[in-house]
Every structure is written in C-alpha cells, then in structure tokens.
C-alpha cells in the first residue's frame, strides 16, 4: 500500500523534508519524493530497528524509524487519519512477520559482506552516539567483505589518475550520513558522485546497491552455491557454449589469464544458465560477467547478472533476442528524432546503425570502449537505468556528427567509431588556450553531452517507444523464423510453401500454448497434442455450450492413445520428439492419400512391430481408434460400422489363423518376447493377444466391406486434416442485443473464463445449460438404427470411448446434426427450439422485456458479486477507504502547498550547491 508522506531526515546539521509517497511492499519499505529525484530509498523491513509514533503537535501523524545503521527517518503521514492508522497497522504486521522469520538477525551477518562497512568503520573511529552503529562497526572490522578479482589482479586504470582516494573520501562521507548498502538513501548527490565514477573498491557493492541486486542476494542466501552444487557435472548446450567463450572474455585482463578468473567466470555463467534455463547463455553475457567479476564476488556477480538479464535488459539475451532488436529499433527512432541530419545521411548511404550500436547495447559498451571508460558508463547505467545506454549512444553520434556525415558505408562507420573510442582519453579541446578546457577529456565531454543534451531521453520515453515498436519487432521475428524454418525443410512433401507455412503456424500456436520455448526445436508429446488439435478436427473436443445467456464453443485438446500412436509413428528418428520436418513429413503421409493409401496408412499406424500383421490386440486398438475419431458423430451409424468391422475382422482373422497357426508359432514366440504390448490387458481370449493375426489384405477387405468406413478412408480421413487456421471460438454472443452488447463491453481474456463459468452456473440452475459436442466428421445427419450393437459390446472389451459416444448420443438425439461447416449456425437455431424453458424469444428483438430481464439481473448480480469476492480477501473496507482518501488527499492541497513552497526554495538551493560540487570534482586536480 502507498501513502502520502513527508519525509524528514534526522541527519546531523541539516534538516531536510521532502514530500512524496511512502510505499509498503513487504518485506520492503520504499519512499520516493514527488519529483522522483530529490530523495529515494528502498529498505528491507528487517533493517528497521525501532518504530515510534511521535507525539508532536495535534493533527500531525508522524513515525520515527530507527534503522540498522543508526540513521533516523521521520515520516509524517499526510493522508487522512484512518489511512494512516491502517498503514501503521500493516507496517506493524509486516515487521512482526520479519521478526518471526528471523530476518532481523541476518542483517548483521549480511552487512559484513559489504565493503562500505569497512570503509565507514575504518574512516571514523566511530563517534558512537548510536549503539547499533558501534556494534555494527566493531564486527565489520573483521573485514570479510566480498570483493572481485580486482583485489588480486588489480583494477583496470591508474588509481592516481582515477583519483581513487578523493572519491573514497567523498563516498565515505556520503555513506556515513545517508546510510549504506541495505539502507542507502539516494539523493541527487549520490547520482552526481556516481557520474564522476565509482571508486574501484566500492564499485561492486554500489552496483549491487544501485541496481537492487543486493536485495536479491540478501533475501536468497546460499542459493548461488546451492545451484552450483545441485548441478555439478551437468552439461547442457549452454554450458558447452560457455566453455567456448571463457577464454574470449576480456582476455587482456590478467585475471582471465589465470585459472582462478576463468573458473569464477565459468561458475557464474553456469549458475545463471541453471537458474534460467530458458535463456541459458548468450554470447555477450560472458563479457558482462567477466566485467563485473573484476569488482564483485561470484555471488554478487550472479545476482547482478540476474537483474541485468531479467530486469534491466529484458529480452536482450533471450533465444530470440527480441529485447535487443527492439531497443535497436527504439534507438534508431530516437536518432531519427534527435539527430535527423545524421539519420537522413545514414538512410541515403544505406548504413545501418545497428552494425555499430548493437554491441554497444549488448555489452554495455564494455566491448567497444577502453574498460575504464566503459565502467564509468556502467556506473551510470546501474544508477540511472537503461536510458543511459540510449543517452550515451546519441551523444556518441552527436559528437561525431561532422565526420559521420562523411561516411559512405558500414565499414567507414565502424572504423570511425573504433577510432573515436580509442581516443576517448584524449583532450576534447587540445587547442584551447585555457588549460582547464584542455584537461577535459573526450570521455568527460561524452558524459556531459549524454546527460545534459539528452536529458530528454527519459525512462518513460523509452518505455513508450518500446511499446510502439514491440509489435513490429515481434512480427518480424515471427516471419523471419517462419521463413527460415520453411526454407530449411529438407523436403516439403506434396505441400506448397504456403501450406508448409500453415503447418508452421499451427506448430507455433501449439508452442505458445504448450510448454516448448523455441519454434526451431523439437516438440514433445504434450505440444504435439496442441499441434494436432490445430490441424485435425478429431483431435479437439469442441463443445457448443449454451446457457441461456450466450452460446460459445469451448475447445479443448483431446487426449487419446491414438494421438500418442500418431506421435510415435511420425517420430521416425525415435528420439521422443518431433521436428517441424517430422510434422510436415507425417502430414504429407496422410493428407494426400487416396482410399487404398489411407487404409494402408491406418494399418501401418497400428501395426506396431511393422511385421505386416495386426495382432488381435491391435485389431482392438484399431476399433478404439475408430471410436475415438467418431466419438462425437451423431447417431449410431459409425458405432454400427465399427461394430461390423470388429465382427468381420475377428471372423476373417480366426479363419485365417486356423491355416497358419502351426507355421507361425515359432515366429510368434519371438515377437512375443520382443513386444511390450500396450493393448488391452486382462482379456479372456483363447489365443495369445499378440499373435500376428490380420494382414493388410484382410484388413482392407474388412474395411471395404463397410460403406461408412470406406467413405471414411476415401475422403473423410484426409479431409479431417485442415491447415487453415481454426476460426475464432466465439459464436455470436447469442442474438439478444442487450446482453450481447453488455457482454462485448466487458469481455476481456481474463474475465471471459469467469464469465463463462458463471453463466454456465446460472444456466444450470435455470435449466438452460446445454453442451453439445461438435462432430469431427459430421457426414451423417440422419440417425440410423443401432445395428449389431450386441457384437460391439461383447464382454471383456473396454471401450471407454464408446461409452462417451453412447452417452452423448441420447442427449443430442432430437437434434438434426449438420455438417461441421454449418454446424455452428444450424445448432444454434435448433437449440433455441429445444430450450425447455419458457419461450423468451431471446433470438429476436427484445419483444418481451420481462423475458430476459431476470437473466440480465442475474448476470448483473453475478458481475457485482464477483468483484466483491476479490475485495473481500483484501479487506475491502480498508481499501475503499484508501481510495476515498486519495481523492480527498488531492483536496487537502493547502497543507501540501506549504510544503511544496518550502521544498522549491530548498530544492533550488540544493542543486546549485551540488552543481558546484560536481563542477569542483570535474575540475579537481589530482590529489
């Protein structure tokens, strides 16, 4: 929950107050000033040592929070009293939970890993007016802080030139007065200090703190080691890729010429790939990891990498690299907007910006600039967010504007950039008479331009630009991968390219719904079921549901042994997964067949050991397959056909068996041993169930003996595979105008299901709920007498599928079934006729308002009732109050105005002072 608050800090000497918002997001407490700049903090609740309600003037509700580091934060809650009370109650509860979890105790151990503690305690022999401070300092002096390879292999750059000592001094002061690591308060001065470059020893920790990865490390102690331990010795494609790049990651740095450095790098990258197997490992992550490992321990680096890949650079390193492509597109559009002349020139000479800028973004400039400069940019990046990458990129182009207008091709562009980066350490104004101007390096100039001239590039702008291009990028990635997938097929079979594209679309659709990640890889059985349900009519369960309010088609993926069989039948390489090629090949084998080929295909599909014979069990499976495919057909025609098939098959089979009984016995023994029959068990058959029984010729004969089966194999089987995308599920939301409109206004993907469930329930209670399965083939529209059902139901056969068919047929017995194509409309009309409840005329104009007003009422009630439930969980009374308060809060401006006025006066003063500080730093002479 958040609340308006005025923050005053009990820092020595200066008394500041800032208006802003206080957020309680257990287990964190965060504050941000209204301008989002003046002050911000996020602190774990476990670092709060004491909370006191201050007894100040009447009408002021203030809390004093004492923190681990001795800092005292005073927040004045400016919202209305009940809200403030609630906030306090929630805060109290959250703190209690933290205490129970023992988190308070873990703070002490954790902060010891932070260098800042050492820094502060060493610098000041603790003027210990605060107990906690003294305690913390004493323990931290054991100096078990985390550090990077730099401690052993030296940090890049000359510490003197980098003015390490003075930076450390400034930071020590800052950290002492404004908290550190877990409880750092961020003022503009913090950002300024970051902009002049973090001191090497503190850099790793500050990266952690500024990016927030510190909190991940804090709240997941030991996870890094666990991950490595659990996955010891495991090899994946990611680990293989990592091995290839270990020696190519900042190879000039001494640390990576030693086993120690390489091993650390390996562990961090591997641990990340285990943590996030979907992303795994992407080239460029090695460079990031190598870079941050110079400044931080493995565990720190691991968590920072996590924040980098998941939050700061979302999608950059994903298998599709969509984030990278998206941000390149955004960058291009920003160049077009901010530097139109350069953009136009690039268009004229056909130079693509990304050839240079892609690695900038992908490796945070580490791969492009000399390391000491790149790390300064990384400092800013962690402090100020991803917009820094764009700002710096634009500044680079702007500074080189003149020269860029001379380039003619990609190569020239790259060379220019390479030269520029190599000269970053040179003076920006070598010919200036002013020695101070001469001292400004090109890098300083770059940062100045980045943050001064491109301050218009805000996080919000980047977010909105990303949103603007997201669709375009996704679309282009999709078409690209589709095109290459189709192109890379070894054989198209009898498909055209377009058809293969449709197969790909179905596959893609299945992958989105299924579990698989990448369209190029193979799919497992589960995804195959999704895939097939996109293609084959019988592989999905389509139910036309009507409940008096609406009609819709619910579509589910069917599961049946037949589909599994198909999966393994198409898995020619026997690897338990199907590739796009396998699918094309498999579909090719069935979609273009004539009668005879189809019969043979079906035979082979069920002949598991490929000996040219079906066993008795397999004959039963064939009939089960039939029943599965025909499960939603209307009437008993198909049932009869299957039953006749069975009778005939066994008749012929038994007759043939008598002849070849003896001669085959030996062979049988073998097959018996080899096979593991997945068929029906516990069947009281006189002959071994896995004995070769029916050959193709006989099978064909048996099939052709039946008219229905013949027509099934002649056209319906092939026709049941349809490549065209399956039409949207919606039927017209019933014809009732009012409810229809109502429905369409509230329909979103999220609430659709709820709504459906709900209306179903109502439908059931008012007796209007009806579910009809849509037939897969839908050839026969007339009911036929059940023929030869007795033989179908011979004891000992389990036909679960047949039961379903039997069950569904009576329910729809009075319906005139229609062909699949027209079934939607046809059935909907028929349904209205059939509806047992009073003729409300819901298909017509609202002739009788009385007719469906109860329904509307019910639906309204439903909708009103639903939100109430959700709120119930979250203490609706309180929430309502907050909302009211917020509105009122806007009104009690008088109070705020005062504060604002105060702040404004105060604020400008601050910035000036800070400006001076920053200026001093830039011009500061080496100490």
């Amino acid at each position: 929950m958040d609340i308006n608050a005025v923050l005053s800090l009990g820092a020595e000497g200066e008394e500041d107050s800032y208006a802003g918002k206080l957020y309680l997001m257990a287990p964190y407490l965060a504050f941000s000033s209204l301008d989002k700049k003046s002050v911000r903090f996020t602190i774990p609740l476990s670092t709060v040592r004491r909370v006191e309600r201050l007894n100040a003037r009447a009408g002021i509700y203030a809390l004093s929070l004492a923190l681990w580091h001795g800092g005292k934060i005073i927040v004045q809650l400016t919202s209305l009293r009940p809200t403030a009370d609630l906030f306090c109650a929630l805060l109290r509860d959250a703190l209690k939970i933290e205490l129970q979890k023992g988190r308070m105790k873990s703070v002490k151990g954790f902060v010891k890993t932070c260098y800042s503690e050492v820094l502060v305690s060493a610098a000041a022999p603790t003027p210990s007016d605060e107990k906690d401070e003294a305690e913390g300092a004493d323990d931290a002096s054991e100096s078990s802080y985390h550090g990077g390879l730099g401690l052993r292999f030296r940090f890049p750059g000359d510490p003197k030139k980098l003015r390490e000592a003075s930076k450390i001094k400034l930071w020590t002061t800052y950290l002492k007065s404004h908290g550190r690591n877990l409880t750092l308060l961020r003022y503009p001065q913090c950002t300024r200090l970051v902009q002049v470059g973090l001191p090497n020893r503190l850099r790793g920790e500050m990266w952690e703190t500024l990016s927030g990865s510190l909190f991940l490390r804090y709240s997941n102690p030991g996870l890094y080691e666990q991950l490595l331990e659990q996955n010891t010795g495991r090899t994946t494609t990611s680990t293989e890729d990592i091995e290839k790049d270990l020696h190519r990651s900042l190879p000039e740095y001494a640390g990576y010429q030693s086993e120690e450095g390489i091993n650390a790098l390996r562990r961090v990258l591997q641990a990340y790939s285990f943590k996030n197997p979907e992303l795994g490992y992407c080239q460029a992550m090695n460079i990031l990891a190598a870079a941050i490992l110079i400044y931080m321990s493995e565990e720190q680096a691991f968590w920072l990498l996590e924040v980098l890949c998941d939050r700061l650079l979302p999608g950059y390193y994903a298998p599709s690299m969509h984030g990278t492509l998206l941000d390149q597109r955004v960058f291009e559009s920003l160049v077009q907007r901010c530097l139109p002349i350069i953009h136009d020139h690039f268009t004229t000479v056909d130079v693509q910006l990304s050839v240079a800028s892609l690695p900038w973004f992908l490796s945070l400039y580490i791969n492009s600039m000399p390391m000491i400069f790149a790390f300064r940019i990384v400092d800013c990046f962690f402090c100020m967010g991803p917009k820094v990458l764009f700002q710096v990129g634009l500044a680079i182009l702007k500074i080189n504007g003149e020269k860029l207008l001379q380039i003619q091709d990609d190569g020239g562009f790259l060379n220019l950039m390479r030269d520029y980066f190599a000269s970053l350490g040179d003076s920006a104004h070598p010919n200036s008479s002013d020695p101070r101007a001469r001292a400004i390096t090109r890098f300083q100039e770059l940062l100045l331009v980045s943050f001064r001239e491109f301050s218009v590039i805000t996080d919000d702008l980047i977010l909105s630009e990303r949103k603007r291009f997201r669709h375009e990028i996704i679309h282009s990635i999709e078409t690209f991968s589709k095109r290459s997938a189709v192109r890379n097929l070894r054989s198209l079979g009898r498909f055209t390219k377009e058809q293969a594209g449709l197969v790909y679309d179905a596959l893609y659709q299945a992958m989105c719904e299924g579990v698989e990640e990448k369209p190029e890889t193979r799919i497992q059985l589960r995804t195959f079921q999704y895939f097939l349900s996109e293609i084959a009519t019988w592989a999905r369960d389509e139910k036309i549901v009507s409940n008096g309010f609406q009609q819709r088609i619910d579509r589910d993926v069917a599961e049946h042994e037949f589909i599994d069989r198909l999966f393994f039948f198409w898995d020619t390489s026997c690897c338990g997964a199907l590739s796009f090629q396998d699918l094309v090949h498999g579909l090719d084998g069935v979609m273009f067949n004539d009668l005879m080929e189809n019969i043979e295909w079906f035979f082979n599909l069920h002949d598991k050991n490929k000996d040219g014979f079906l066993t008795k069990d397999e004959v039963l499976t064939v009939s089960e397959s039939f029943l599965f495919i025909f499960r939603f057909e209307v009437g008993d025609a198909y049932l009869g056909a299957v039953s006749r098939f069975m009778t005939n098959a066994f008749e012929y089979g038994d007759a043939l068996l008598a002849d070849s009984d003896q001669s085959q016995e030996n062979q049988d023994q073998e097959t018996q041993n080899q096979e593991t029959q997945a068929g029906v068990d516990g069947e009281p058959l006189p002959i071994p169930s896995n004995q070769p029984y029916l050959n193709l010729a006989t099978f064909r004969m048996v099939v052709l003996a039946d008219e229905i089966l013949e027509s099934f194999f002649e056209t319906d089987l092939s026709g049941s595979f349809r490549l065209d995308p399956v039409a949207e599920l919606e039927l017209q939301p019933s014809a009732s105008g009012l409810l229809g409109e109502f429905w369409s206004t509230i329909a979103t993907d999220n609430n659709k299901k709820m709504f459906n469930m709900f209306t179903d329930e109502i439908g059931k209670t008012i007796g209007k709920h009806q579910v009809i399965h849509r037939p897969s083939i839908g050839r026969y529209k007339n009911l036929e007498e059940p023929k030869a059902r007795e033989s179908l139901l011979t004891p000992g056969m389990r036909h679960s599928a047949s039961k379903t068919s039997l069950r569904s047929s009576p329910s729809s017995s009075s319906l005139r079934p229609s062909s699949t194509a027209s079934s939607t409309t046809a059935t909907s009309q028929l349904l209205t006729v059939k509806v047992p409840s009073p003729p409300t005329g819901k298909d017509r104009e609202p002739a009788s308002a009385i007719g469906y007003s109860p329904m509307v009422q019910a639906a309204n009630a439903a909708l009103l009732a639903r939100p109430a439930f959700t709120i119930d969980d979250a203490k609706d009374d309180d929430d309502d109050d907050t909302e009211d308060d917020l509105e009122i809060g806007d009104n009690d401006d008088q109070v705020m105005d005062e504060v604002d006025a105060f702040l404004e006066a105060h604020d400008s003063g601050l910035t000036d002072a800070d400006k001076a500080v920053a200026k001093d730093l830039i011009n500061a002479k080496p100490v």
Partner: protein
Amino acid sequence: MAEAASGSTDKSVQVKLVLLGEAAVGKSSVVLRFVSDEFQANKEPTIGAAFLTQKCRLEDRVLRYEIWDTAGQERFHSLAPMYYRNAQAAVVVYDITKASSLEKAKSWVKELQRQANPNIVIALAGNKLDLVQSSSSSSGTPLSESSEDEADDATATPGETPSSSSGEPESLRQVPREEAQAYATEAGLLFFETSAKTGEGVVEIFTEIAKKIPIEHILAATRGSVGRPGAAGRAGGAQEGAVNLEENANKPKDACNC
C-alpha cells in the same frame, strides 16, 4: 573499363564479404589467418560481428576486403541479415569433423541465395583439415600446442580425438570431401577444404572469390551512381538490375536461381 575504373577511384576495389557458419567451426580463425596470417585465440570477442579489412592483390588490381565475421551462436541468427545485406561475397564455413555443421552451412547457403544480394559469390569452406590429415600435420598436433581455437575443436568433436588422431585420422572426418564437393557444384558454390591452423587453403578462398567477383560491375556501379567518388554502388536498384542481367549472361552458374 578496368583502367577507366582505376582512373576514377584511386584506391582499391572494395568488396564486402561475410563469414557465416555454425558456432566453433573456426570462422574467426579463418579470417585471422587471412588477415594477419596467424593462428591464435580470438582476442576480440565476437558480439554480433567483428569487422576486419584486408587487401588482396589479384593480377593487375587490388581488392580491399571488408570482412564481417559473424557470431555463430544460433540466437544471433536473426541478426545475420544485417551483416550479409549488400555483401558481394560470402564464405560459409563448416567443420569437416562435424556432419551437422554442413547441414547448418547448407541452410546458410539457402538463405543467402534467397535473401542476399542476387550476385553474391558464395564459397563453401570445410575447415579443420589439419585434424584429419595423417602423419604430415596431425602427428605433430600435440594437445599442448593447441591454443584457444583448438579448445573449440575439442568441444566440437569427441574429447579424446586429438590424442588418438595419429592412428587413424581419417576416421575423424565426418564429411567426405566428395560429398561436400558435389553439393557445392550442385549449388554453384566455390569449394575449399581449409585449415586455419596450418593455413592450408585459406588464402585460396579469397583469391578465388576475387577472381569470380564481377569487379567491373562494382566499379561501374560506384562510378555511375554518383558524381562524388567513393559513394558506394548500393544506391540504385536499377543499376543492380542491369548488373544482374549481364552477370547472368556471363556466368549463368553464379546466378542463384535455385
């Protein structure tokens, strides 16, 4: 025509060349051998693509190759069009000790023929020849000598192979020369087997490409396109069309109409 060209553009002819192929087949090593005649760890990690240039002298003229050495990891695939657009030449590299790398190479070739500049000259290079050559080189391939790229080899092929290679090195080969040659002929590619390590066959790729590149057209396009010298000849689609026709007439095999 040639002299007119050399008159107008003082410098050498620029040819954009892109290297493609599966990860760890030795693309970067091949380039490094060609550009600086050395074999070593790739000091510069490849993000997206590395960019190098090298001149190549051919009879009376000098070609300046702008080489784009692309990243091999599969997920960088979608970035590849950025690098092969406008390329006049491509070297598709596979590893002769890894059959799957040829499959990947074939798909690259298909993609180039479909998506890239229609006149692009494509060379197929089967790298790591040193691993399958008996006595002459492989007996002298102790593991200690193997530097970075050889580490790649070790990951690409079964680990024990380098040590056992002296016995029957040919067994390491998974792609018969004839098979690759046949495919290259069929697809209209130049074909080489190379070893970036020994240097065998590397320079040949680039000189053969140089011979096959329609230099006159590059020059003509360069001169024709703009008054300003040096403006690359990618400006006009019409010119490309003209080039196309003539090119087809001269060397029908180059035209990638498959």
